[in-house]
C-alpha cells in the first residue's frame, strides 16, 4: 500500500513544484518565432551560430508571420520571444499592439528576397504567362469576356480560353491555402498586378479601392484552384504525377527540384536566381525579421546572432543562405540594414 502511495506523492509534489515555477527568471537561449518562409533561412543561421560560438542554438518556431507578431508583441520579458521572422513588413496595427504591451522599440531587418513561382512538370513544355493571364485564370470574378463592364463568375476552363497563345490544357492550379504567407504575397503581387492590366479593374481601383482588393484577392473556388496545404514538397510531388497541373510555391523549392519541375515565365522573365535578384521577376517579395531592442542585452548571444545573420558569409551573394535559395539584396541595402542592426535603430 505504501508502495502504491509513492508515485502518487511524487506526482503531487511534482505538480506543486511546477505550479510554483512562475515565469522563468532567465533564459540562456534566443527564442525566435514567425514566418514559415523565413524558417528555412533563419534555422541555417541559428545552427551556424550555435555550432561556431559558445552560445546555445536559438529555438525557432514556425508559426506563420501573423502568429509570430502576435507572440512577439505580447510583451517584454524572457517568456516572450526575442525575434520574429516575417515574409511581409510589420503592419501599423501590429506596431500599435506592440506599443500597448510595452514593446516600444522594434528593429526591422530586411534579409533578402523570395520569389513565388508558378511551375509545372518538366514532362510538358514551359508556360509563358503574363500577370493578366494569371488574374484571368484564377480570379473568382472576371470582366465579362463578351464585353461590358460587369463582372461574371470566371468562365475560363482551359489556358487557351484565357489567352490563345497558351496551351489547350485544363486550368488546374495547386496553391497555398489562405492561412499561408505565400498566398498573401501571391494575391498581392500577382493577382493585384494582373488586375491592374485590365482597364475595367484598374478603373475600379480609383473608384472603389475596397472592391478592387476584394476582386483581386478572391480566388476561384470551382475546382480549378486546389488548395494543396502548406507543404510545398507535396505540391512538387503532385506536379510530377500530373503534368497538366501548375503549382504555386516558393523559389527555394524550385531550386531544389530543377530536375522535376520548371518555373513558368511571368511577363517573359523566368524565375531564376538572377532574375529575382535584379528585381525583374514580378512576383518576388522581401523577407524580414524584427528584433525586440529591450532584449538585445538581456538574452545572451543576441548581438552575435544578429551579426552572424547580417554578415556577408550569411546573406551575401556567395553566402550560405543563397545556397538554401534566398535571393540576396543589393549591396547598398545590405550595408544599410547591417548598420541598422549594429546600432539597433528602431523603426519610427
Amino acid at each position, binding site marked *: 500500500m505504501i508502495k502504491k502511495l509513492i508515485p502518487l506523492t511524487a*506526482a503531487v509534489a511534482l505538480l506543486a513544484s511546477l505550479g510554483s515555477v512562475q515565469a522563468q527568471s532567465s533564459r540562456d*537561449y534566443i527564442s525566435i518565432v514567425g514566418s514559415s518562409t523565413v524558417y528555412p533561412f533563419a534555422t541555417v543561421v541559428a545552427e551556424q551560430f550555435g555550432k561556431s560560438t559558445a552560445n546555445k542554438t536559438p529555438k525557432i518556431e514556425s508559426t506563420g508571420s501573423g502568429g509570430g507578431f502576435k507572440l512577439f508583441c505580447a510583451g517584454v520579458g524572457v*517568456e516572450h520571444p526575442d525575434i520574429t521572422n516575417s515574409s511581409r513588413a510589420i503592419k501599423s496595427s501590429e506596431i500599435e499592439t506592440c506599443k500597448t504591451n510595452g514593446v516600444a522599440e522594434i528593429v526591422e531587418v530586411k534579409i533578402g528576397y523570395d520569389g513565388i513561382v508558378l511551375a509545372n512538370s518538366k514532362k510538358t513544355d514551359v508556360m509563358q504567362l503574363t500577370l493578366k493571364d494569371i488574374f484571368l485564370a484564377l480570379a473568382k470574378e472576371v470582366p465579362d469576356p463578351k464585353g461590358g463592364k460587369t463582372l461574371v463568375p470566371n468562365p475560363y476552363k482551359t489556358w487557351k480560353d484565357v489567352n490563345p497563345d497558351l496551351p489547350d490544357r485544363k486550368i488546374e492550379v495547386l496553391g497555398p491555402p489562405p492561412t499561408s504567407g505565400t498566398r498573401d504575397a501571391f494575391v498581392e503581387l500577382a493577382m493585384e498586378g494582373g488586375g491592374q492590366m485590365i482597364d475595367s479593374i484598374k478603373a475600379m481601383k480609383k473608384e472603389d479601392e475596397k472592391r478592387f482588393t476584394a476582386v483581386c484577392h478572391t480566388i476561384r473556388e470551382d475546382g480549378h484552384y486546389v488548395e494543396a496545404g502548406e*507543404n510545398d514538397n507535396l505540391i512538387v510531388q503532385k506536379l510530377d504525377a500530373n503534368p497538366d497541373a501548375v503549382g504555386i510555391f516558393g523559389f527555394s523549392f524550385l531550386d531544389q*527540384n530543377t*530536375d522535376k519541375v520548371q518555373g513558368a515565365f511571368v511577363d517573359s522573365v523566368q524565375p531564376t536566381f538572377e532574375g529575382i535578384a535584379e528585381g525583374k521577376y514580378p512576383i518576388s517579395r522581401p523577407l524580414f525579421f524584427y528584433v525586440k531592442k529591450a532584449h538585445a542585452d538581456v538574452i545572451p548571444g543576441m548581438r552575435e546572432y544578429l551579426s552572424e545573420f547580417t554578415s556577408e558569409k550569411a546573406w551575401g551573394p556567395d553566402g550560405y543562405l543563397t545556397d*538554401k535559395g534566398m535571393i540576396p539584396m543589393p549591396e547598398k541595402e545590405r550595408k544599410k540594414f547591417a548598420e541598422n542592426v549594429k546600432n539597433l535603430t528602431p523603426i519610427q
Partner: protein
Amino acid sequence: MSNAVSEASKPEKPLRTLDIVNAGLAKRYRAERRFRRLGLAAIIASLAFLSMLFADIFWKGHTAFRQTFIQLNILFDPELIDAENLAAADYNGFIRKALEREFPEVSGRGDRRELSQIVSPGAAFILQKQLRDNPELIGQTLPLWVPANDDVDMLMKGHIDRYAPEGERRLSDKQLAWLKRLEEQNKIQKKFNKTFFTAGDSREPELAGIWGATVGSLYTLFITLLLSFPIGVATAVYLEEFAPKNRWTDIIEVNINNLAAVPSIVFGLLGLAVFLNFFGMPRSAPTVGGLVLTLMTLPTIIIAGRAALKSVPPSIREAALGIGASKMQMVTHHVLPLAMPGMLTGTIIGMAQALGETAPLLMIGMVAFIVDIPGSFTDPSTVLPVQIYLWADSPERAFVERTSAAIMVLLAFLIAMNAVAVYLRKKFEHRW
C-alpha cells in the same frame, strides 16, 4: 368443408421440417461461404494496405541509415592554429586546402567554390571536435572521413540522375568528374550513418539526427506516465469501487467517455491557456508537453482501468470481505493486483498514443527547430512525430529518406510498446 379443402391440397408426400431445411441448405452454405470470404477479403485488403505503407516507408527510408563520406588528408597546420583558442581556427580552410591538394589542377574562384561544395558544411565542426578531443594532432596530417554534402549523398544513392542535362541537376559536370575520380581511388564510401542516431536536428540533411527528438519524447512521456498512471488508476478505483451510483457519478462517467473522443488540438489550446498563460510555464518545455499529453491520455487509462476492475469477479471481493478485510484492504490486496495487467495494458496503449501526437504540442511551442539535445525537463525540445513533420516540410531532397527513416524509428518504438502490452496481458492475465 375445410377438411375437404385440406385433403385436396395435401401433397402426395407430407412436407417435413427436414425437407424444408434441406431445400434451403445449399443456399445457407453459400451465404456462409460468401460471408467468410468477405471477412477474409477485408483482412487481406487491410493487410495489403498496411504492407504497402510499410514497404513504401522502408523503400524510401532504408538508404538513410548509410551516409556518404569522403576521405581527405587533413593537415592540422600548426601555424594556423592557436593552441590557446582552438575554436577560432579556420577549419573550413583546412578542408579547402586538403581538397586543393587532392585536386591540384582546380583553379579559379568559381571552380574552387564548387569543389568545396562536395563536402558537407558541417565537416569543419567535426574537425573542430576531433582537435578539441586530441590536441596532440596539431601538426599532423590525418586521413579523415568527412561527410559528403547532401547532393553528393543523393547522387551516390541514385536519387539524382547523373545523365540528366547539367542544368537539371544540382551537381555540375565538373563536380561529377571529381566525384568519379574519388570513387576510382576508393576515397568516397557509404558508411553507417551514426549521426542520424546521435545528433539533434539540423538544416543540413547529412548532419541531422533524431536523438534530440527522441530525448524530448522520452522526457515528455516520462512526465505523462508519472502523472497519468497514478491519477488514472486512482480515478478508476474510486469510481468503480467506492463511488456511490448517483447522478453525479453518471455525469462524471459520461464526461470521461466524451473526453476520450475530444480532438487532441483542444488539449493543446487548453495547455496554452492554463499552463503557459496562467501558470507562466516555459514554452516548448517537455514538462508542459507532458502535462498536456497527460490530459489527453487520462480518459484512455481510466476507461481501461475501469474495464479491468469490472472483469475481476465479485466472488473475490465477497470472499475478502467475508473473512473480515476492510473495503480498502479488499481493493489494495485483491482487486487491484488482479486488475493491474489490464490497467498496465491500457496505460501502455495510452502512452503509445501520446508518443504519436503532434497537434496538442503545436500550441505550446514544441513544433520548433531545436538543435541542442535537451538536458532537462524545462529545456526547449521537440518530439519524434514533430521531427518527422518538420523534415517532411523541408525543401532538401535528402530529407525525404530521413523522414521515412524517422518514421521507421517511431514505428519501432510503437511496436515495442504494443508488444510489451501484449506480453503483459498474456503473462499476467487471469481467466475465470
